[in-house]
């Protein structure tokens, strides 16, 4: 009897291990495949020429494969989305966690969850039909499809992740800290910003990094509003991100162009791994602190 139970336990543990390894295997497979497919083009084009070249003309008679415009566009686009999204998300989180009356809180939280669930194509569609003409009329530019449109769409897309994780972090601050602060005579607002927020800062940093991860990996929504011309980024210019560069050319590419696209994917993958490592670092500090 006892032996049977023990073998059963070991068997189930084995099944768990195998299932867990499935995920690890997938990640390993993707990493290895990307590295193997991405390195040849970098080698042939030259690493400096590839990463720092400013012209991308993959189908021209004399092709050039410089991806600096894409790297800078992705960086600026994500930075812009963070600059707009984090203050709004952060303030909303403070409001939801500390100030909001319960009914308002439930209503707002459902709205945020709904926003989180909207697929990126819908964001892109609404952006294309409403935001792009809006930018054109408001700023008197010839065409609204630009970096600005992409930044606004990305900011709205990362709001839900920032809000949700920040709310969790703020609610996890021990009540004793806030009670002590209030007892010492601080006003509620002073307490929130000088006690609760610093106590939750690791969680809030994790929220921001999560938002960055989503913004840098977004392809569909951004493809419909940003214009897709391979220019160096500027706010009202038509731009192309790392993600859209791969998405728009992959289906018909061949030869060196296709390998170059894999190299772009590798660069993107490295960015995202960097962001994940940062997230991991912040989460670990959150657990200890």
């Amino acid at each position, binding site marked *: 009897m006892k032996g049977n139970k023990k073998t059963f336990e070991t068997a189930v543990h084995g099944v768990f291990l195998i299932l867990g390894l499935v995920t690890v295997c997938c990640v390993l497979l993707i990493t290895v495949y990307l590295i193997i497919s991405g390195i040849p083009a970098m080698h042939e084009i030259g690493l400096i020429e590839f990463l720092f070249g400013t012209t991308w*003309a993959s*189908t021209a*008679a004399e092709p050039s494969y410089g991806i600096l415009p894409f790297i800078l566009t992705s960086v600026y686009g994500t930075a812009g989305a963070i600059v707009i999204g984090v203050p709004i998300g952060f303030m909303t989180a403070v409001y939801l966690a500390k100030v909001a009356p319960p009914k308002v809180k439930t209503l707002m939280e459902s709205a945020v969850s709904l926003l989180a669930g909207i697929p990126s194509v819908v964001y892109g569609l609404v952006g*294309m039909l409403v935001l792009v003409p809006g930018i054109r009329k408001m700023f008197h530019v*010839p*065409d609204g499809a630009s970096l600005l449109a992409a930044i606004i769409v990305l900011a709205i897309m990362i709001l839900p992740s920032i809000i949700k994780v920040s709310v969790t972090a703020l609610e996890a601050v021990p009540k004793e800290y806030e009670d002590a602060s209030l007892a010492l005579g601080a006003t509620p607002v002073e307490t929130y910003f000088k006690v609760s927020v610093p106590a939750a800062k690791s969680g809030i940093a994790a929220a921001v990094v999560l938002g960055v991860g989503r913004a840098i990996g977004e392809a569909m929504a951004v493809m419909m509003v940003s*214009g*897709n011309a391979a220019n160096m980024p500027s706010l009202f210019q038509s731009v192309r991100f790392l993600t859209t560069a791969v998405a728009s050319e992959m*289906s*018909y590419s061949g030869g060196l162009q296709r390998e170059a696209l894999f190299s772009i994917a590798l660069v993107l993958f490295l960015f995202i791994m960097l962001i994940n490592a940062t997230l991991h670092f912040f989460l670990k500090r959150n657990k200890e602190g």
Partner: protein
Amino acid sequence: MKKIISLLIIGVMAVAMLAGCGVKNSGGTVSTDGSTSMEKVIGALGESYMAENKNVIFTYNPTGSGSGIKAVLEGRCDIGLSSRSLKDEEKANGLKETVLAYDGIAIIVNPANPVSDLSLEQIASIYTGDITNWKDIGGNDAKIVLIGREAGSGTRDGFESITGTEDACKYRQELTSTGDVITTVSQNPDAIGYASLASVKDSVKALSVGGVNPSESTVKDGSYVIQRPFVLVTKEGTALSETAQKFFDYITSADAAGIISAAGAVAAN
């Protein structure tokens, strides 16, 4: 109560999933992939074929000419659709082209734009960035917004080769389908773009080129110069499946010419 209801719903959904099974393949499938310009034409042909042959399933995947040519090369579809002729490398790879129809590439502007005629040289200068303001060609005082297609597009290839602007076009936006170009031009009063004549609707205005209005007859007699062939791409030496071959013979026959004309292109047969 809740348990019973949820079990019932699961049961109904599971059965519904099986509903798709019976319909399968008593007549075979024919899959086409490629040019978005050919959507109306191939859609009309597919529909009429399916109406006459009840058991055949016809599918069309709008991915762009370049992508369609790749798809047939890799065996992912039966017939590739391209809105340009095959290049020499593509023919060397073992692909064969059959011209289905001829289609004009309409130069489209917003209906609110006062300009209605441009010469081929003016169009080329606009797209290479030599002319940047509508007022230089008789329109309003506004910057011209250039809308074009992605690099693998058959329409772009046709347009650039006829206007002589290969690798020199300065696009503001590079969109991935004919429909996108039409939508974008219809929303921006200063935009100019190019799209398949067969797909142009009332939401945009098609310019006349050098005084010639784009229409089926001017494409047919060649007076409307910006035109290109709609081409069916197949693999040399590999036979199509029976269903696909029948469909192929149907659409290249004289009976299908009426449907092709109704869809806005000029039948080759």
